[in-house]
């Protein structure tokens, strides 16, 4: 590493104004009776008005109303207030409103503190107005204590590259890329495999419209490929990133395709290849060569070499020496982007060997495999599988989903998949409908725990299946179906199940094909999680900051989620999530400037002794570093925060032995003051609480 030059000492890592003596304004909202029906707001104002530093203490019927806000603004100007504390509804509702209020009056917006006394007081203490009033006083008193420690803060402003990176070339990635590009931003889309389209390309139709899958996908791909703002790299992965929102420097490593252009005569080269491997497009049901197209009509329309299996024998190149080059390695290159969309998708659950006979009997297949079997089947005559006609099919739901510890085998990480994969019920019933339509003579048995056809139009598949004679059998998790060889030999298999629709009767369903409705698992993206410092949840899917209020943002500002990298979703939901991600990216980058909340770590250089404990504790690379500085003529190490990378989690705060780090706006001193205020003897409360 190049040696860094020591920087001259600076007073702090964040500009601060001189401290003034606190002049507090306290405001208690009636919330139209929502608070004042239980809390004696006038008494709260009176008690707080007697507290040190409080200049005004007022109530109002609706503090968020224009009149309420005008009153606060006027007080700030007239009484030269420099701190404002408001007791009202949840801060999630009106914190931003009141920040605007104090800001309009010329006060730094972070000189305001909000105390929730509706959801967390008056609404939960209906029968105890005295207690509710005392609680409001203590909570507001804690708010005053915090306010005395408030410091002016400024949003973090960063220049932003108007360029986004989308990781993943499935439907969510394509949708996100197109939507971002349509908003005028540059997009780079990378796909780790040689072809675009993801799992959607392996479907024949999509629910709930039964629209053909690949034409719809190809229409989307065409738009993305031909969009002037989009650059696509297939066979490309991320190897490293640096920087932060607005300025992520991303190292990309492409792998050579091995084939150039449309390459006339490439079919002869493919036929010349002596290597055959299971074809992942058909989930291993068929085989392909080591030089291959994913499927007829795939994008890009150029064959690719599967370097993992290619033996470099050169047979293909002998047929087409002009267009085939057996050189795998390419040079790593760097792009700089303002935001990153993670659209890495899912992988179907792979049943463990023996699970419902999977891997033991060739007649046990997964739902994705069954969809491919149907895709490859001729419409006329019988459906054949493993050399015999299919007369009875048993579909089993919830394979690899909604698992129960102690009942199901855990995954290698020791956890079972206890989540619902959401998509498989409707997908199974759609496959059932397809089977019924094309091969009406086949008897179908549907074995389920619960049918969760939750989306618009999904229940119709269930209704149609019921009407068309599909027989539904319901099992309980702890008594799941058992698949065995048919002892009579009439059919290859028998599925034994206790059917709770007939009060637990043990039934035996002879079957020529057993279809396991496997759930979704996140794609294998451990390397990406590591490189981008993402947080997976307990279910291993990537975590958003908040499922409802910030549903596509990760804790790393500027990195957003799209599609099934986040959780099981169907195509419609994946596209909606991708559009949300694109909106978020456009909102972040379109101005060329990113503005972030200032709630990030801050180092008190007067206390920092350069122990490095904060650097060791921090999980976000580059958020905090030790830098060499010169103090009193000596070179010393001091912690320095990168505000744009820091997520404000505060892990460094507790790690520092010198209390030299705090999260701005949420400092330890503020919490200590609040706790002291809650615990304090308040003379006016003695009678109430005695």
């Amino acid at each position: 590493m190049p040696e860094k030059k020591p920087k001259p000492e600076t007073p702090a890592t964040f500009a601060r104004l001189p401290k003034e003596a606190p002049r507090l304004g306290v405001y208690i909202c009636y919330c139209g009776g929502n608070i004042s029906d239980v809390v004696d707001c006038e008494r709260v104002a009176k008690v707080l008005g007697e507290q040190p530093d409080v200049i005004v203490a007022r109530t109002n019927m609706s503090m968020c109303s224009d009149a309420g806000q005008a009153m606060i603004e006027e007080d700030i100007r007239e009484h030269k207030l420099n701190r404002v504390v408001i007791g009202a509804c949840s801060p999630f509702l009106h914190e931003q409103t009141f920040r605007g209020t104090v800001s309009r009056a010329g006060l730094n917006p972070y000189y305001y503190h909000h105390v929730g006394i509706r959801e967390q007081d008056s609404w939960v203490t209906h029968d105890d107005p005295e207690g509710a009033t005392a609680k409001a006083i203590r909570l507001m008193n804690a708010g005053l204590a915090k306010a005395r420690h408030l410091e002016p803060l400024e949003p973090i402003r960063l220049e932003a590259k108007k360029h986004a990176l989308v990781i993943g070339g499935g439907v969510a990635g394509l949708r996100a890329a197109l939507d971002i590009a349509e908003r005028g931003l540059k997009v780079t889309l990378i796909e780790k495999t040689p072809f675009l389209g993801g799992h959607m390309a392996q479907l024949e139709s999509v629910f709930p419209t039964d629209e053909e899958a690949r034409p719809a996908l190809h229409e989307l791909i065409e738009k993305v490929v031909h969009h002037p703002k989009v650059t696509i790299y297939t066979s490309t992965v991320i190897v490293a990133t640096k920087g932060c929102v607005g300025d992520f420097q991303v190292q990309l490593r492409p792998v050579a395709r091995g084939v150039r252009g449309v390459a006339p005569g490439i079919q002869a080269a493919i036929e010349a290849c002596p290597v055959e491997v299971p074809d992942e497009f058909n989930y291993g049901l068929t085989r392909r060569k080591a030089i291959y197209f994913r499927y007829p009509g795939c994008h890009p329309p150029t064959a690719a070499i599967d370097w993992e299996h290619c033996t470099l024998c050169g047979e293909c190149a002998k047929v087409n020496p002009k267009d085939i080059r057996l050189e795998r390695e390419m040079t790593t290159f760097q792009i700089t982007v303002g935001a990153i969309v993670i659209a890495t998708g899912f992988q179907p659950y792979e049943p463990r060997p023996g699970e419902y006979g999977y891997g033991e009997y060739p007649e046990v297949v997964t739902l994705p495999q069954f969809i491919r079997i149907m895709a490859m089947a001729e419409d006329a005559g019988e459906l054949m599988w493993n050399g015999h006609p299919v007369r009875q099919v048993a579909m089993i739901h919830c394979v690899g989903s909604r698992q129960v510890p102690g009942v199901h085998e855990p995954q290698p990480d020791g956890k079972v998949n206890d989540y619902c994969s959401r998509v498989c019920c409707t997908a199974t019933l759609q496959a059932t409908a397809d089977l019924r339509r094309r091969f009406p003579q086949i008897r179908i048995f549907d074995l389920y725990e619960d049918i969760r056809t939750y989306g618009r139009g999904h229940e119709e598949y269930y209704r149609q299946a019921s009407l068309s004679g599909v027989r539904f059998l319901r099992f309980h998790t702890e008594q799941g179906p058992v698949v065995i060889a048919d002892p009579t030999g009439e059919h290859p298999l028998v599925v034994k199940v206790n059917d709770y629709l007939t009060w637990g009767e043990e039934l035996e369903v002879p079957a020529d094909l057993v279809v396991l409705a496997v759930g979704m698992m996140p794609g294998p993206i451990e390397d990406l999680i590591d490189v981008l410092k993402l947080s997976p949840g307990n279910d291993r899917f990537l975590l958003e900051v908040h499922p409802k209020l910030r549903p596509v943002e990760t804790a790393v500002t500027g990195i957003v989620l799209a599609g099934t990298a986040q959780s099981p979703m169907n195509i419609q939901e994946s596209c909606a999530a991708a559009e949300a991600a694109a909106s978020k990216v456009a909102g972040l980058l379109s101005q060329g400037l990113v503005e972030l909340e200032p709630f990030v770590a801050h180092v008190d250089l007067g206390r920092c002794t350069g122990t490095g404990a904060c650097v060791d504790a921090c999980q976000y690379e580059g958020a905090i570093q030790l830098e060499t500085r010169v103090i009193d003529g000596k070179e010393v190490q001091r912690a320095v925060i990168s505000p744009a990378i820091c997520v404000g989690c505060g892990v460094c705060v507790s790690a520092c032995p010198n209390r030299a780090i705090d999260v701005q706006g949420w400092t330890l001193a503020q919490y200590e003051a609040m706790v002291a205020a809650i615990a304090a003897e308040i003379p006016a409360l003695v009678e109430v609480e005695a």
Partner: protein
Amino acid sequence: MGSERKPPQTKVLILASLSGGYRGADSVGQLHTDYPSNTYILPVISAAIFPESFYLNSFEQGIDAILVMFSGTDSPFKGSAEKTAEIINHAYALMKERGIDTRRLRLVAICTVCTAAFLREIHRMEALLEEIGPVSAELSASPAPEPEPQPA
């Protein structure tokens, strides 16, 4: 009755993460479900900011119980759940040394809609406080050690 003095009201501090417990508390409010008024909820970005001494000092100040309502493994911040659990474990050791019943401090995972779990934890803590009383009795039974001299 007039001469009978009520026992001093206990105080339960709830440190609730903004991505979990604090919104869970809001959800309970929206259900208009009552719980005792001696509960004081403070929002925290992540409870990982509090060193173990913070908990001990809070008890010394007169807080009788602390519920740390974090987001558990669903925390959006990498490593913060593990760090919080580690700190709470250290805090238990300090509490034992100081003669404070460790049941007064509980780390619980509460999500934004965990209303039942939120109420259960509060009622469980209230029941405990009814059984063991305020922290002041434990603190006075076990005087604090003399503070070590600080370097000048």
